[in-house]
């Protein structure tokens, strides 16, 4: 009997020992693979920064247009890779803003210069100053990164950062931390801040702050169009509620409406919620709820989103479109015409664009989401409309349609022409001719500037995705 239990004990011990060792090895294996992927991202980042520094310096010495274009496009490519590699390191909980800013600015500057030189322009004195400034910053990053290399020689280093970062985000909260006090948990926060690799990166970041911020002409990175449609005076909460009632379906205008929050972004706004008076309509299958954002200045509706189940389709797409059009008209949005529609489960999203004469003003766009069951307007989006409202009055068309068409590639077959004001990739509003063209089975929308004749945009139409009306 005793011998029998002895054997059993021995077998069990052996079994668990083998199981444990296998588990440990599997864990080690995964840890090494993770470490390797971080190492790869780090070394690639080092390579990208080295290349950026060299290329920026070389580009300043070159006087050949062709060489310069190669330097700028290579730098642009390396900067894009650097951003991708930096994004793969476990730094999401640390402020690496300065390094990220450097990378994105180099990318944008070199792209601009590539276009400038390619378009026949010359690298100006100001451009050279910017290049020089960024080359200095690149040198600083390069040297900081190379100083970090010994940190990686002995032990796996990224694992520690990874663990500390995860501890910060996935630590189970002890009954919830009050706002403003969160994160002050010395053991976990400390281990991240005391990590030698993190320390080195923070030192690099601090060092970078000592360099002047060179900036460059044509920097559009932080460009945001100044919204011009928010005209009028400040409104009260009660006024916001009254405005909100106008936008919901007629049957819902006497339901409960209240301001639930204020928005403090670029455009301060009230969030107004409309919910059913009847308790039983607040939960379950027939429940609904609408939230709207109404600007504090002027009381303009920015967006509206309604949450409800949509029943069987009773409306055709074109009926829904007309409903939307009438809805906008009844609320005082004049001259809006439907431009495109996208169908989803139970709803259709239609975009309406302002038309002045025969010119479509694309930036002044309002999107509506219309329910297929009863034509209720479920959602509304007017940020673009309110940003660009009234910026264009009577766009000039010096080039004739035939002249503009002459700028198209000869192989394209023109199927339709429209006049349209668009925002180009320099964030300017330009009057264009929109040519709907065909090349074999492919369809393209091509925009030719009505003043300069430049090709401003080429859009490929993907069949079945958006129906252009």
């Amino acid at each position: 009997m005793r011998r029998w239990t002895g054997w059993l004990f021995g077998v069990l011990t052996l079994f668990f020992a083998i199981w444990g060792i296998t588990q440990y090895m599997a864990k080690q294996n995964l840890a090494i693979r993770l470490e390797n992927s971080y190492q790869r991202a780090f070394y690639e980042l080092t390579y990208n920064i080295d290349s950026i520094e060299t290329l920026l310096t070389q580009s300043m010495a070159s006087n050949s247009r062709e060489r310069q274009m190669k330097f700028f496009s290579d730098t642009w490519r390396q900067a894009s890779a650097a951003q991708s590699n930096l994004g793969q390191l476990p730094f999401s909980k640390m402020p690496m803003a300065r390094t990220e800013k450097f990378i994105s600015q180099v990318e944008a500057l070199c792209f601009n210069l590539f276009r400038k030189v390619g378009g026949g322009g010359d690298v100006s004195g100001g451009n050279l100053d910017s290049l020089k400034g960024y080359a200095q910053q690149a040198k600083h990053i390069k040297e900081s990164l190379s100083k970090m290399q010994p940190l990686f020689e002995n032990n796996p280093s990224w694992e520690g950062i990874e663990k500390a970062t995860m501890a910060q985000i996935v630590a189970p909260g002890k009954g919830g931390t009050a706002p403003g006090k969160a994160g002050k948990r010395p053991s976990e926060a400390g281990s991240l801040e005391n990590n030698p690799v993190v320390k080195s990166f923070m030192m690099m970041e601090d060092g970078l702050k000592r360099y002047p911020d060179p900036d460059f002409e044509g920097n559009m990175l932080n460009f945001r169009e100044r919204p011009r449609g928010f005209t009028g005076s400040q409104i009260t909460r009660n006024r916001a509620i009254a405005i909100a009632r106008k936008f919901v379906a007629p049957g819902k205008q006497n339901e409960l409406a209240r301001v639930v929050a204020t928005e403090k972004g670029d455009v301060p706004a009230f969030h107004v919620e409309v919910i059913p008076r009847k308790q039983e309509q607040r939960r379950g299958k027939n429940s609904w709820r609408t939230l709207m954002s109404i600007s504090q200045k002027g009381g303009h509706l920015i967006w509206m989103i309604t949450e409800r189940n949509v029943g069987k389709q009773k409306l055709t797409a074109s009926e829904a479109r007309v409903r939307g059009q009438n809805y906008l008209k009844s609320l005082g949005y004049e001259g809006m015409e439907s431009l495109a529609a996208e169908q989803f489960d139970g709803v259709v999203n239609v975009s309406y664009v302002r038309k002045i004469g025969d010119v479509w003003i694309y930036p002044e766009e309002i999107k509506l989401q219309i329910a297929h069951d009863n034509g209720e307007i479920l959602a509304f989006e007017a940020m673009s409309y309110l940003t660009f409202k009234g910026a264009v009055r009577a766009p000039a068309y010096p080039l004739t349609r035939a002249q503009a068409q002459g700028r198209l590639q000869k192989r394209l077959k023109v199927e339709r022409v429209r006049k349209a004001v668009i925002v180009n990739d320099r964030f300017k509003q330009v009057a264009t001719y929109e040519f709907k063209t065909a090349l074999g089975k492919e369809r393209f929308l091509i925009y030719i500037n009505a003043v300069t004749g430049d090709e401003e945009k080429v859009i490929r139409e993907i069949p079945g995705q958006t129906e252009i009306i």
Partner: protein
Amino acid sequence: MHKKVGLFIIFLLLVLGAWLALRPQEPTEAQRRTSYSYTLLARLINGEARGEPYVGQVAVGAVILNRAQHPRFPNTVAGVVYQPGAFESVSRGQIWTPVKSSSYRAAQAALSGWDPSGGAIYFWNPYKPVSRWIWSRRIISRIGKHVFAR
């Protein structure tokens, strides 16, 4: 005997019917076509904001898209979603839970241009521990349990 077999088959059919009715909804073909980022965006919304009001889900989707446009973040939805440690649900694997149909609808709305976050690039739950520096961001609004910041 035959009666028993018949009842058993009816029971099986009922189970099958219940399963068909209750299983997580697949996106329709029209939704799937729309964008490569669509499914991933829906997964992230599902992982991060399942219990939130629909508007809050759209706002989370909009934050991801705002990040992909922002110069200081990776340029793609996948790059933003999988940035190491950026989202708790990705780190913990919750984005692989079955996706609810409302998450798909929210992803669709965000991709169609709705941004209830007011242009935010951060969001967090103030009642959970978060890293200290995130509180230095400018808070724009609050929807459901999340605050949205730039």
